[in-house]
C-alpha cells in the first residue's frame, strides 16, 4: 500500500528525514513512533502530497506522490496534527462538503455522512458550529472527514493528542475498527495505545528507521535486555558469583540492605532465567523473599532505542 524508498526531505538546509525506506502492506495498522522532530509529520505530509520529497520516492497504492498526486489524494484520508477545520460550518454541512470534494458519489453523500457520524459518535453535535465544539469533538470531526470517502489508506497524525482518557479509548476502538477495512498509518506518543491498536511499529529518530516490527517482537527482542528482580537473604558476594554462573546471564547488580540483598539479573530479552535463579538460591541454602520480572513496555524499548541512537 505504501512504498517509501530512500526518502529525504530537507527544509532550507535542515534535514528532516534522511534516506528513509519502508513498506506498509494493505490492511496493516502501523504505528509511527519517534521523538518530537524525528520526521514523523514530515513523512506523513509527503505521503499525503502536501509537500514533495527533496529526493527519493514514495508511492501509495502504486501511484507516485509527486507524479500522480491526484490519484494518491483520492485514495488517502489525512488528518493533520492540528486538525484544521472551518469554524463557521456546521458538522453535517462540513462533512457533506468534504464528501463532495473528495468525490463520494452524489447519491451516496447523505448516507455516507450519516454513517461516519455514527462511527465517530458525532450525532449529538451534528447541527453545531465546528468553532463551538470542544477539542475532542473537533478531533472526531477530523477523523470523520478522513474516512468519509472510504479511502484505502488513512493517515492520522497524532489522532489522540489533547483528548481525555475516555475519548482516547473511543478513538482507539475506532482505529481498531478502521484497521478491519483500511490500511492505517498513525503517529502517536502514547505508547500503550500502539501496543493495543497496531499490528506493526515503526520507530524513527533523526529521520532514520530504528526498528520495524510487531509490538510483541519488539518487546521480546533479543538485542534488548530483560531484567529479573530478586530479593534474597544471604551473603552478597557469594550470591553474586552463583547467579553470574548461570548461562545467558549478562550482568548481575546487587545492593545490600542489612542482611537483605536486592539483586537485578539481566538477560537477553527472549530468555527466562527465573527457574535457574531459584535453583541457585536453594543450592546456596539462602532464602528468596521476592522474585519478579517487571514487564517490559514499549516505552522501555522506545527509550532504549532512541537513546542508544543519541549516544552514537
Amino acid at each position, binding site marked *: 500500500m505504501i512504498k517509501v524508498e530512500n526518502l529525504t526531505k530537507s*527544509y*532550507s538546509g535542515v534535514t528532516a528525514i534522511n534516506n528513509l525506506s519502508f513498506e506498509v502492506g494493505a490492511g496493516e495498522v502501523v504505528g509511527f513512533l519517534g521523538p518530537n522532530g524525528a520526521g514523523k509529520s514530515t513523512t506523513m505530509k509527503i505521503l*499525503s*502530497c*502536501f*509537500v*514533495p520529497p527533496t529526493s527519493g520516492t514514495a508511492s501509495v497504492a502504486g501511484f507516485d506522490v509527486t507524479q500522480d498526486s*491526484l490519484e494518491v*489524494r*483520492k485514495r*488517502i484520508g*489525512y488528518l*493533520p496534527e*492540528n486538525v*484544521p*477545520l*472551518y*469554524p*463557521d*460550518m456546521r458538522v453535517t454541512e462540513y462533512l457533506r*462538503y*468534504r464528501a*463532495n*470534494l*473528495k*468525490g463520494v458519489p*452524489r447519491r451516496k453523500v447523505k448516507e455516507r455522512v450519516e454513517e461516519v457520524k455514527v462511527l465517530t459518535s458525532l450525532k449529538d453535535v451534528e447541527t453545531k458550529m465546528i468553532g463551538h465544539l470542544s477539542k475532542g469533538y473537533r478531533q472526531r470531526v477530523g477523523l470523520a*472527514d478522513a474516512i468519509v470517502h472510504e479511502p484505502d489508506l488513512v493517515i492520522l497524525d497524532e489522532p489522540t493528542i489533547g483528548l481525555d482518557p475516555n475519548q482516547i479509548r473511543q478513538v482507539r476502538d475506532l482505529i481498531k475498527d478502521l484497521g478491519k477495512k483500511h490500511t492505517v498509518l498513525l503517529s502517536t506518543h502514547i505508547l500503550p495505545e500502539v501496543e493495543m491498536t497496531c499490528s506493526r511499529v515503526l520507530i524513527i529518530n533523526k529521520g532514520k528507521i530504528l526498528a520495524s516490527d510487531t509490538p510483541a517482537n519488539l518487546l521480546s527482542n533479543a538485542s534488548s535486555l530483560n531484567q529479573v528482580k530478586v530479593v534474597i537473604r544471604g551473603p552478597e558476594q557469594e550470591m553474586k558469583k552463583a547467579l553470574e554462573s548461570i548461562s545467558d546471564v549478562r550482568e548481575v547488580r546487587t545492593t545490600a540492605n542489612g542482611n537483605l540483598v536486592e539483586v537485578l539479573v539481566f538477560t537477553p530479552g527472549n530468555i527466562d532465567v527465573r527457574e535457574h535463579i531459584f535453583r541457585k538460591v536453594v543450592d546456596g541454602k539462602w532464602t528468596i523473599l521476592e522474585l519478579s520480572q517487571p514487564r517490559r513496555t514499549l516505552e522501555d524499548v522506545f527509550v532504549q532505542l532512541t537513546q542508544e541512537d543519541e549516544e552514537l
Partner: protein
Amino acid sequence: MRSFWTMFKRELASFFFSPIIYVVGGLLMMLLGWTFVLLVLDMANGEREAPVTTWFFNMFWLPALILPAVISMRLLAEEKKTGTLEMLVTAPVTDWQIVLSKFFAGLAVYAIVWVPSIFYGLALRFLVGASAGVEFSPLFCSFFGVVLNASVMIGFGILASSVTRNQIIAAVLTFVFVFVYLIIPEWIKGFVYSGPLAEGLSYISIFDHLKQFQRAIIGVQPLIFYVTATYFFLFWTVRMLESRKWK
C-alpha cells in the same frame, strides 16, 4: 467541475457568515441610493439628460477602492493562517480549481453587492414609463462592465491574499494596487492628450471602457484586456500555491 462548484458554494456561503460584507454592502447601497436620488432630482430640474440610470455607474470607483480589497483579503490568507489550506490541497482537487473557485466566489459577491443598481433603473422605467428613457441594454452592459473590471482587481486581490497569512497586509496591497490602477492613468491622461502613451492608457482605463459599456457597446479590446490581466494574476496565484512544493 463538481469540485469547483463544491468549493465555490462553500466560499460564497462563508462570505455571508462574516459581518464585514453586510457593512460594506450596506454602505455601497447607501451611496448608490444617494447618488440615484441626486441624479433623479437633477433630471427633474432638466439639468441632466436622461437616462440617469447608467450615469451612476460613473461613481463605481469609490466602492471599487474598498470592495475588492475587503472581498479578496481572506480568500487564501485565512486558509493559510488557520491551516485549512492543508486540508484543501490534500483533497483530490487541483490548485487551479481551488484558485478559480475562490476567485469566482469573490467576483460573485462583488456582483451581488451591485445587483441593486439594476433595480434603480427598473424602478425608474416602471414608475415613470418610457419617457424616462431607460433602456435595458445600456443598463445591463454597465452592470456587466463594472463586474468585468472588478475581475482584474479581485484577481490581484487573490494573488495578494496568497502571498501572506495576514489578511490586513493582503487588503492593503490590494488597496494600493487598485488605487494606482484606477487613479494614476486618469491623472496622466489629464496632461498627456495624444501619442502612444495616451493610447496605451486608454486601453487599460476602466473609465474609458465604462463609457463604451454605458452605450451598450462591449468591445473586444476591453474584454481581451480584462481576461488577460485576470489570467495573469490567477496564474501567479496558482504558482504561489505551488510554491509550498519548492521550499
